[in-house]
């Protein structure tokens, strides 16, 4: 494959040189450099000791080249060593992605490393989420074929990436999607899509069990539609017996059921949505010996509200792919301007609720581990529940607030694995956006979390000042003031200028999603200094 790719790249380039000026005119190149560096310090009071390598660095260099329908690209990664919070198997420097691709109106062929998704990703998703250290791109062949506008066929074959290597497991599959109804425009939508997928994983087993399932077959069927203001979608996935490290090598079939429906007023005054999902042995591994999430070839994320505040991310739902049932409901109301509840600028009210339980199941002594006879039945064990109410209100031209109320239940014993007990928490968060003068903005985020159990109550504060030249200064602190009395503070600046961005900060960081300096990103836990730089070229 490497020889083939190099040959094609070289021949493409040299043929271009011989064609002269038009080649250069039509050649497009872009790329990016991202480097995240940290220097760790000890914090003896908090019992946080710096790792042996006090300096850590993750660097990503990508370049994409395009000439008419041809595209080629590379991605180089360096972990010297990997940042705290990233799996240690990300190590060294390597060209981790190289591809060539040809696209026209009917066909799209990918050779080398590529990303792809079938349906909602429940049966197959190859994707990259750098901030979390996830990249399971497939090294092989990917084809998309569109014989007629209403029909799309995809096929993939290759080995998924796991850390810096390729999985010993091979993945092969196909997906077909038919759109018998495809009308959209003038405020009206009538859409219906029907799809089916098949994904096979084969990985040789060298152990003593003669019945070990080396080959796993998964099938999926789905629908997605919208009829004016009503939308609906669903997907069903069946997987043959898969035994893997995270499921303790039980020999169990897999099942995923996903349903969604919603309604939205065409004038956007109101909308509601409900999602339901059931997982049973749902983690589909590219390597049955790997426990890490990076080894999965399907994607079953937590269907809960994704929080962007300091404290709300302390108790996020961790899905239980072995068995989980639940869903999420959303309701929004937008009060228009110049109404009693809307005021001069309007008011937005957003209500969200999610609830997840273990399956209604019984343990068995056969290799299956457990059985769950009823498809739609909630088990007695509660896993996670949260209720979120957000009121977004602009008071004057220069002042806006976001008021958030959260009440949650978190089964820490199961979600984190250990004798921790259950946590009940209530949060009140106020976000203030204040325009000080033209193009200067002050943001103040004040939070408090009342916790029943675990580390008890928390308080948090973030302030950020944005300047018109792209500079922003920020300082934040969150502390569990009743138990450990630890302060997780962060102070620094970010500067964005066109295609470049640099951020320098110091502090003690809890893992979570942090939104400052105009961007949001996930950060791992550390104590020390952090320097991030990105460049697009």
């Amino acid at each position, binding site marked *: 494959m490497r020889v083939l790719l190099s040959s094609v790249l070289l021949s493409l380039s040299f043929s271009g040189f011989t064609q002269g000026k038009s080649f250069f005119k039509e050649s497009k190149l872009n790329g990016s450099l991202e480097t995240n560096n940290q220097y760790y310090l000890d914090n003896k009071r908090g019992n946080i000791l710096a790792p042996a390598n006090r300096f850590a660095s993750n660097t990503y260099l990508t370049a994409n080249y395009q000439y008419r329908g041809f595209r080629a690209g590379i991605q180089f990664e360096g972990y010297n060593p990997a940042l705290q919070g990233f799996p240690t198997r990300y190590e060294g420097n390597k060209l981790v992605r190289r591809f060539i691709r040809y696209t026209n109106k009917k066909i799209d062929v990918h050779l080398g490393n590529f990303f792809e*998704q079938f349906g909602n990703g429940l049966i197959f998703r190859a994707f990259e989420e750098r901030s979390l250290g996830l990249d399971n791109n497939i090294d092989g062949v990917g084809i998309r074929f569109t014989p007629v506008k209403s029909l799309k066929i995809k096929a993939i074959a290759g080995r998924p990436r796991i850390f810096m290597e390729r999985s010993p497991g091979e993945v092969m599959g196909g997906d077909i999607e038919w759109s018998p109804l495809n009308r959209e425009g003038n405020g009206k939508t009538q859409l219906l899509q029907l799809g089916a997928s098949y994904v096979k994983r084969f990985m040789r087993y060298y152990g003593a069990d003669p019945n070990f399932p080396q080959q796993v077959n998964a099938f999926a069927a789905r629908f997605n539609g919208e009829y004016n203001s009503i939308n609906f979608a669903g997907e069903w996935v069946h997987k043959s017996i898969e035994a893997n490290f995270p499921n303790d090598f039980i020999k169990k079939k897999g099942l995923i059921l996903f349903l969604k429906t919603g309604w939205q007023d065409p004038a956007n005054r109101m909308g509601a949505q409900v999602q339901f999902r059931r997982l049973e042995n749902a983690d589909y591994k590219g390597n049955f010996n790997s426990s890490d999430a990076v080894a999965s070839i399907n994607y079953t994320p937590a269907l809960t509200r*994704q*929080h962007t505040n300091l404290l709300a991310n302390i108790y996020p739902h961790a899905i239980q792919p072995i068995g989980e049932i639940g869903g999420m409901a959303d309701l929004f109301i937008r009060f228009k301007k110049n109404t009693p509840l809307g005021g001069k600028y309007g008011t937005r009210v957003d209500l969200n609720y999610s609830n997840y339980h273990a399956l209604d199941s019984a343990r068995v002594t056969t290799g299956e581990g457990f059985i769950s006879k009823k498809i739609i039945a909630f088990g007695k064990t509660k896993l996670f529940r949260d209720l979120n109410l957000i009121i977004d209100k602009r008071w004057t031209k220069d002042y806006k607030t976001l008021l958030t109320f959260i009440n949650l239940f978190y089964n820490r014993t199961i979600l984190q694995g250990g004798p921790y007990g259950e946590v009940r928490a209530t949060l009140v968060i106020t976000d203030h956006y204040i325009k000080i003068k033209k*193009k200067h903005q002050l943001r103040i985020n004040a939070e408090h979390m009342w916790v029943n159990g675990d580390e008890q109550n928390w308080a948090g504060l973030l302030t950020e000042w944005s300047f018109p030249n792209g500079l922003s200064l920020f300082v934040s602190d969150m502390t569990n003031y009743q138990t450990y009395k630890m302060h997780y503070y962060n102070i620094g600046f970010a500067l964005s200028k066109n295609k470049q961005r640099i951020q320098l900060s110091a502090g003690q960081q809890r893992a979570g999603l942090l939104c400052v300096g105009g961007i949001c990103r996930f950060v791992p836990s550390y104590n020390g200094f952090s320097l991030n730089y990105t460049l697009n070229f």
Partner: protein
Amino acid sequence: MMRSLLLILLFSPLSLLAQEKLPAVVIKSIAGKEVNTESFQYNEVPLVISFWATWCKPCLQELDAFNELTETWKKETPARIIAISIDDSRTAAGIKKTAGLHDWSFEVFWDQNQDLKRALNISLIPHTLVIDKKGMILKRYTAYVPGNEDNILALLKTL
């Protein structure tokens, strides 16, 4: 290592000779209908394309700022504003809700598996592009700076 350096060297001289164009990538409407980004250029007007996600507060702030200025912009430039969500299936159900809750008057699309984001080498959001009538990317903004919409409008008026 040598192989990667060779590839970088192979690509690098071309960057001096080529401008960056919006790549042709298939994305989706909020409802799920496929749309090729080539079609954005059908009426040859400048574009402002903003990459966002439902969980990204600065993105929402930027798009709200665009939304508030839509009527003013219409009088001064024929440019289209396009918001492209990079939400994955965890939060994708919130795209339509967020667009409705904020009552955005511009078009909203969904880059379902982040193919367009990757083709443009975008690593962080918000990320906003200003594109001329021929599809060439003139400017990239890699963060939201309050008031930047004035700079974008000034640039659009020159196109």
